[in-house]
């Protein structure tokens, strides 16, 4: 049922050139954006850009397993939530040191990914989608019931994480560049993983798991590691989100959020990694600007998504690489 295989071979020559040009363009724009603050109030642009990049990190992490492993996780927002709550809960107890908060966020995500992945990866297709949804919901309801940490109302974080006491996240510009660096790191890490032997096994398993198994690879193990890596990177996104918003709430891990992440990856074009960044940016920018224009913006956005599916194969990236 995978229409992605013929797409990959067709797009291969274009992808090779796009593989350097497009990410280059994306990161160039993102790096230069704060300078463009001449054109609009700086803090607003920085806040918007930071938010886009944070979700882009999560989207790239999701694309790793969706695009290259055909593992559609409908519970990925849970990892964002775990990372964010790590920051929030530690802050509520007075611990603001980054070197404690970040590893905690990553560890929580990895452990949850390993535990749930071990069970989920025994299923396939839509069953995998649903069981990841189930685990995501469980974390969501758990967070909602954490009365000492705000429960459904969420928790305000009095001050952002500090590195050895230095408030590195306090200045919006500094935060922006740190998140940009994190996004770049995530992107190139995932790129390296995909291109490595590990990545080839993963992609092979996406095409034909039985063949990979007969070749001697323990597909399950490879998928579990990929799933854990993807979860950890989302945990990183959650860590940054908590610092950027000074706030955490169970809404960060609702199933609607997980769905939005999938849409971001799909919109951009799965299986390219930079498509995920584009998808996250387009999705959030449209939501931001259309909603300023009319409160019924989804009446326009909905059909837009439908049209992208009907006329663009492979999301926005596919749309442009077929025209360009």
């Amino acid at each position: 049922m995978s229409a992605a295989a013929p797409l990959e071979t067709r797009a291969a020559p274009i992808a090779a050139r796009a593989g350097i040009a497009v990410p280059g363009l994306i990161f160039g724009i993102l790096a230069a954006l704060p300078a463009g603050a001449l054109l609009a109030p700086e803090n607003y642009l920085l806040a918007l850009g930071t938010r886009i990049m944070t979700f882009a990190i999560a989207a790239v992490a999701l694309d790793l397993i969706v695009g290259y492993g055909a593992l559609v996780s409908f519970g990925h927002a849970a990892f964002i939530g775990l990372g964010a709550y790590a920051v929030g809960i530690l802050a509520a107890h007075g611990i603001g040191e980054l070197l404690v908060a970040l590893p905690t966020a990553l560890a929580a995500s990895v452990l949850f990914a390993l535990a749930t992945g071990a069970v989920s990866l025994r299923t396939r297709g839509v069953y995998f989608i649903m069981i990841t949804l189930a685990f995501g919901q469980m974390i969501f309801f758990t967070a909602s019931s954490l009365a000492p940490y705000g429960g459904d109302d969420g928790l305000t974080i009095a001050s952002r994480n500090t590195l050895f006491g230095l408030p590195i996240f306090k200045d919006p510009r500094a935060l922006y560049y740190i998140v940009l660096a994190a996004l770049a790191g995530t992107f190139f890490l995932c790129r390296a993983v995909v291109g490595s032997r590990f990545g080839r096994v993963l992609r092979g398993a996406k095409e034909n798991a039985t063949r990979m198994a007969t070749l001697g690879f323990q597909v399950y193990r490879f998928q579990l590691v990929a799933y854990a890596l993807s979860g950890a990177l989302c945990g990183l996104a959650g860590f940054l989100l908590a610092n950027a918003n000074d706030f955490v709430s169970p809404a960060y891990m609702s199933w609607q959020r997980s769905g939005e992440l999938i849409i971001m990856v799909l919109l951009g074009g799965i299986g390219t990694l930079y498509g995920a960044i584009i998808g996250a940016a387009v999705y959030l920018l449209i939501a931001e600007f259309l909603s300023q224009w009319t409160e019924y913006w989804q009446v326009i956005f909905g059909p837009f998504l439908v049209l992208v599916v009907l006329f663009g194969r492979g999301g926005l990236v596919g749309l442009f690489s077929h025209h360009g």
Partner: protein
Amino acid sequence: MSSLLFVQILNGLQLGVLLFLIAAGLTLVFGVMDLINLAHGVQYMLGAYLAVTFYGLTGSFLAALVLALAATLAFALALELLVFRQLYARDHLDHVMATFGVILFVDQGVKLVWGAAPLSLPVPELLSGSVTLMGGLLYPVWRLVIIGSGLAVAVGLYVLVGHTRVGMLVRAGATNAPLVSALGVNINRLFMLVFGFGAMLAGFAGVMIAPILSVEPGMGDAILILAFVVIVIGGIGSIRGAFVAALMIGLVDTLGRSFAVDVLRLFMGPSPARTVGPALASMLIYVLMAIVLTLRPAGLFPAAGR
């Protein structure tokens, strides 16, 4: 205590039957056309809204029901023609994105047309009474009607799918659509039939529940997730699975919500039990799904050929 339990079981059955009406269409569409239709929830919501409007125009519940079903069918067929027909050959992920777009459009569209305030539909005069079930609690006749109609639909579907020619085509289509097409059956028309019928079932559920629940934008989204849980536990493509799973979920959810706090109070103090209880109860159906999928990765009654 046992009479409380009995009433809660009835409540669970009512929820289960409602879920079945929605899940049946969803699993049919998924089974026959391999289409993930996230927009199924909006069919349920539209059924309710259309019933409210037609009731306002005609003053008769029966007329409103018939007209709402007809309008739901018309909308579903239009949607099938415009959007879904292009999706059959596409990837599951394409289905997800396209139907997600449909949800956004309809959820907001409904707000534009009917406004954001919750609407309501009165129970039909004849069936608006109550039956005394246990000391003081009158169980609304209408809820019994819902249970009854749901069971009737279940029986009807069983007969239709298992014992008619159309049903045979549907089952064949679920197993191997290209082959059925090669045998000369108009597969497009079959798909349209299945899709329309599934949408009507969801719309019917919406109309039936409207007198009890408020009709509001987004009411289809929460029930959609439950419906997916049902079809996954039941096994995709299996009506029988959807029926069993729907009743199971209905009972587990209702009984869980009723008794979770009491059960927890055996292990912890009343105050923590009161806050943890509802959270645990909400998780219960997902825990159930996780267990079922661990033991049976393809659901309880996977349709043959999957």
